[in-house]
């Protein structure tokens, strides 16, 4: 039951106040062009998650999951990639309008003025310092602006459902997993083929 709350609009961003407006002016977002929000095409094998979204999730997942991820470096990296895969699968099944809203949030957070002035993260997301990312997440979590809290909840929820649906996450929870032989299946694969067009013999 993920309670994800994603929405971001220029009008709401303006509620963020003077700093926000200044940032948006700098970013050239007040000219009324919606193009700036266009999601980057998903690359590689990803179905829905843009490169901007991937960069942000790769930067925040280790912070959200500090104390939860495996200690082995390779396993940690793979766990984060599995989070991205789960989020990608999830977003790919949402209506395009909802998926677009999620990508809008990622696009905005990728804009240097927003990242630096509103989130306080100085380096680009792939190089972001974990301490700054933690400060950003905690700051938006406790923000007096509903919009920033909503973006925090969205980011936290995506990472959290992507992690806690993984068998690796279940080990420290003491959870043995569901009573099914399906755990070996890759995400999204099912046992049965879809029904072919036409009639089906029972």
């Amino acid at each position, binding site marked *: 039951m993920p309670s994800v709350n994603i929405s971001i609009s220029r009008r709401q961003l303006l509620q963020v106040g003077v700093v926000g407006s200044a940032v948006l002016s700098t970013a050239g977002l007040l000219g009324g062009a919606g193009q700036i929000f266009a999601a980057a095409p998903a690359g590689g094998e990803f179905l829905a998650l843009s490169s901007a979204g991937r960069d942000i999730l790769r930067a925040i997942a280790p912070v959200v999951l500090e104390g939860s991820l495996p200690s082995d470096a390779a396993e940690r990296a793979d766990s984060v990639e599995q989070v991205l895969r789960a989020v990608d*699968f999830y977003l790919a099944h949402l209506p395009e309008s*909802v998926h677009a809203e999620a990508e809008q949030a990622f696009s905005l957070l990728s804009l240097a003025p927003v990242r630096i002035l509103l989130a306080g993260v100085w380096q680009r997301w792939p190089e972001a310092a974990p301490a700054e990312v933690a400060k950003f997440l905690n700051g938006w979590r406790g923000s007096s602006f509903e919009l920033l809290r909503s973006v925090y909840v969205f980011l*936290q929820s995506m990472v959290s459902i992507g992690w*806690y*649906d993984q068998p690796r996450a279940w080990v420290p929870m003491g959870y043995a997993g569901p009573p099914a032989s399906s755990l070996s299946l890759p995400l999204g694969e099912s046992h049965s083929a879809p029904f072919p067009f036409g009639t089906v013999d*029972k």
Partner: protein
Amino acid sequence: MTHEIYTGSRLEADLTLAGDVVIVGTGAGGGVCAEILARSGFRVVMVEEGAYWTARDFTLREVPSFARFYFEGGVRQTKDKGIGVMQGRAVGGSTTVNWTSSVRTPSQTLRYWTDTYGLKGFTPEAMAPWFEVMEQRLNVHPWTAHNENNALLARGAATLGWRYEALPRNVKDCPGLGYCGLGCPIDAKQSMLVTTIPTALDHGAVLLTRVRADQVDIRGDRVFGITGVALDDRGVRLTGRRVRIDAPFVIVAGAAINSPALLLRSNAPDPYARLGKRTFLQIHNYSIAIMPELVDAYVGAPQSVHSDQFLWRDGVTGRAGYHIEAVGTQPAGTMNFRKSIGPELAQAASQYRRTHILVSQIRDGFSEASPGGTVTLRSDRRGLLDYPITEYIRDGIRSSYLSMAECQFAAGAATVMPANMDAQPYTTWAEARAAIASLSLRSPNTVVNSTHPLGGCAMGEDPHVSVVNSDGWYHHLRNLAVIDGSTFPTSVGVNPGLSIYALAARQATTLVAALGRTVPEEYRVG
């Protein structure tokens, strides 16, 4: 036995079919209608937006299951993003992924509908045989093998002297895997997927999956069928293929949000602007306790005890009442109640097996202070629910936070915390009571959602305040009925599954008789 099934995503050309009755939706309303009409000799065509997932597809993994089997990943957001609505999107609708709670409509609710909206045939006495019929059909029976999660609710309630009882469930040979919300991999759940829909198919009904009903073909005061659009394999994009089904009778059973949206898209006559109005949610809010001992709330029937101690606490038309139940705890869904990060989140994960969660459903629609929400159309023509969280609802949330915390402490909780980013884990009932009294209730911090959207095509005998009559027939059209949870004039107050099954059985049999056929024997009442 050959079944006629079309998978919309695989259509290589537009498709035209004809039948006696077309039914939009295959959930609690549509499924029951399909069986009764097909067994009465009608050629039924069922149109379903979801896919035909079956037991083998139910892998019990949360992310793919939420993504596939629910509308919008289980988080169909209201207009201001304040509430996520969970609705099944699959053959069988929400019955495929519900938690099997099968409880009769409270008599208070039925009397309110009768007295306030002039409904005919909805008194507790008149409805009793219909509940019996559907309880028989779906093997509804009281459940006694309560898991620790539900036993804790019972113990807390008993300690406090509250009313509580076992919930009946629609299951057969159920070993209590505990993953009902992700689909039943062993077909123990007697959902529409394994009961009415196969029976309808056996009786010559046609099923279209991955087809979204786009419009009812309305000319003057008559309908002539529907047009639909095919969706791709993920159910996201339109493939461009279109479907037309010609039928002299149309049953809309797409549930709240979808049913009014279909009629709005179709420009159905609506002289008093009632379509989509009075949509209710029975908003859910949650309380998370950590128990001293293991609970393992992900094993065993997720919901088998309920308490209506506070459902009518201030009378039917007074302050918001609520119904309390336990919540099954699969890991991703459970941890999503926690909006924390880092060590705080890791600590919550380490307490996972000792986690006990209660939910309150807040009864809406019984008071002028609770008019519900309104469905309109988005720019992409899908339904959008605007549901403001009013003072009436806030009062219900705060009161139910208090009740749930008191119950969990009475059951021996070490800590209790409302599912709210502004709350802390409290270690005593006194501390919780003081903190909850002044807890801020705000979006998105207060975790609320709904698995029970209802209304929007309200039944009533007065067209000025309703959309369909007591038989489900549309007031302003001669051959269209709405038969699903969208026709309830208020919320139900409890899990609505059995209410919808019984309503559909009553209305579908009335329809069969009106169309001059004979009702199957099992569905004859009185």
